[in-house]
């Protein structure tokens, strides 16, 4: 049989593992939540998001093209000047030219994508922009505010009610700890489940953020 000390140690260990796992689950779930901001699934929703990337890609592409053309012009100049002087072959400008033509082929697709994206963006903006904070939106935001308040109210109520409950039911410290942590365990696990079932749509955002990280880091 376990002694009282052993049991205490066991409970403490269990609580600790619960806390750690809840932290892990919570952080994973919460990151999923954070990644889910500004992301939707319909055409309009995606367009907002992809537009920013598209704009960036387009500007990057333009820069790349101008760079290439400048390079090829320089190469031509060098070639013409060097061949005249002492038979120096110089830089091979044909490969540069082929690269330019290749990148120019994609330009039409880019531009059409960009235009359609701008069109969708404009339509959605215009439809939402007329007397924007309408009564409906305000009611909706008010109800959401209330649900936030209620969720915080119910989750914090326990920590205050724990004082009289401890007096009446005689909770130990580890019991109090596991009461507090089991909330986060449930939260984290269920948020991960929501991610799994595409309720929180993380994929797109993860992809784009990795893209940004790869560029900047």
């Amino acid at each position, binding site marked *: 049989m376990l002694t009282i000390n052993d049991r205490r140690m066991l409970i403490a260990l269990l609580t600790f593992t619960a806390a750690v796992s809840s*932290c892990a689950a919570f*952080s994973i*779930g*919460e*990151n999923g*939540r954070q990644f*889910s901001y500004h992301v939707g699934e319909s055409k309009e929703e995606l367009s907002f998001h992809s*537009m*920013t990337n598209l*704009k*960036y890609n387009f500007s990057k592409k333009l820069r790349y093209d101008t760079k290439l053309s400048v390079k090829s012009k320089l190469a031509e100049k060098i070639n013409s000047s060097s061949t005249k002087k002492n038979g120096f072959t110089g830089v091979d400008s044909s490969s540069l030219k082929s690269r330019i033509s290749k990148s120019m082929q994609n330009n039409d697709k880019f531009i059409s994508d960009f235009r359609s994206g701008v069109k969708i963006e404009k339509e959605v*903006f215009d439809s939402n922009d007329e007397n*924007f904070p309408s009564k409906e*939106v305000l*009611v909706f*935001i008010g*109800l*959401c*505010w209330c*649900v*936030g*308040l209620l*969720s*915080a*109210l*119910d*989750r*914090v*109520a326990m*920590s*205050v*009610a724990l*004082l*009289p409950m*401890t007096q009446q039911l005689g909770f130990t410290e580890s*019991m109090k*700890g596991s*009461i*507090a942590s*089991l*909330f986060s365990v*449930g*939260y*984290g696990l*269920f948020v991960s489940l*929501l991610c799994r*079932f*595409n*309720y*929180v*749509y993380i*994929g797109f955002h*993860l*992809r784009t*953020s*990795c893209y*940004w*990280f790869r560029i*900047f*880091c």
Partner: protein
Amino acid sequence: MSQVSPRAVLAVGVFCWSLSTAFTPIAAMSGFGALLAVRCTMGAAESVVLPSINKMLIKWIPPERKSLAVATIFSGLQSGTVAAYLISPTILENFGWQNLFYIYGAIGALWVVPWLLYARDSPNDPTSSDEFQLKQSSTELSIDRSDEKSIADIWSGAMKEGSRILEEAPLREMRQSIPVIAIAVAHAANNWGLYNNLAWSPTFYSETYGLNVRESAFFSVLPPGKHFKFITSFLLFFLNRSLIRSGRSIEWDYGCIGCG
């Protein structure tokens, strides 16, 4: 894509956690395991809130103004924490701890009614009164009836979509990416501090300084600066708006500044 209506999910979530709040006293009297189970259920139900709200905000608010709406709604979370510390002692003194949970559960269940009456998934989505009555009579269906899919279809579709997303998502890069790890660690640390405060402040004040319930709850309001976070988030609205207008992607900027 899954066709689950966030409005219905949120209604079911609020109903479930109100129910488990109302059942907390009974569970606590019957046994410790039951209490833990109720807390776990409540946590699971509350996790629905933020994803649902985000999902609906996408359709309700244009992205330029979304951060203001998010800041407003998230200020509700902080206000709720403060309100819980300030109101709960009064209820505890007058009605006892059992009734505290009953009252809070009842308020939550009452909130579902205006939500089902006035809220819609998107501004362009007509929710007729007939449909609402149908939903109300069958105790808040979690699935929208407008599309004629069975629950099994939706379930399998969601499973497929979810696994596709998980396969496509660059999880390896995410695990190896230092910024992602940094965000995860920062968020874990943030929650560590916050939930330590939320869970243990009243107990700490009452055990260490011998304060009564009212005093210890009052002092618990002050330490976490998190309660005043929404002021910063309102300021961030303007930054966010200008960033979106300039057409840059904002997630990297936020990761850089480290806003939670």
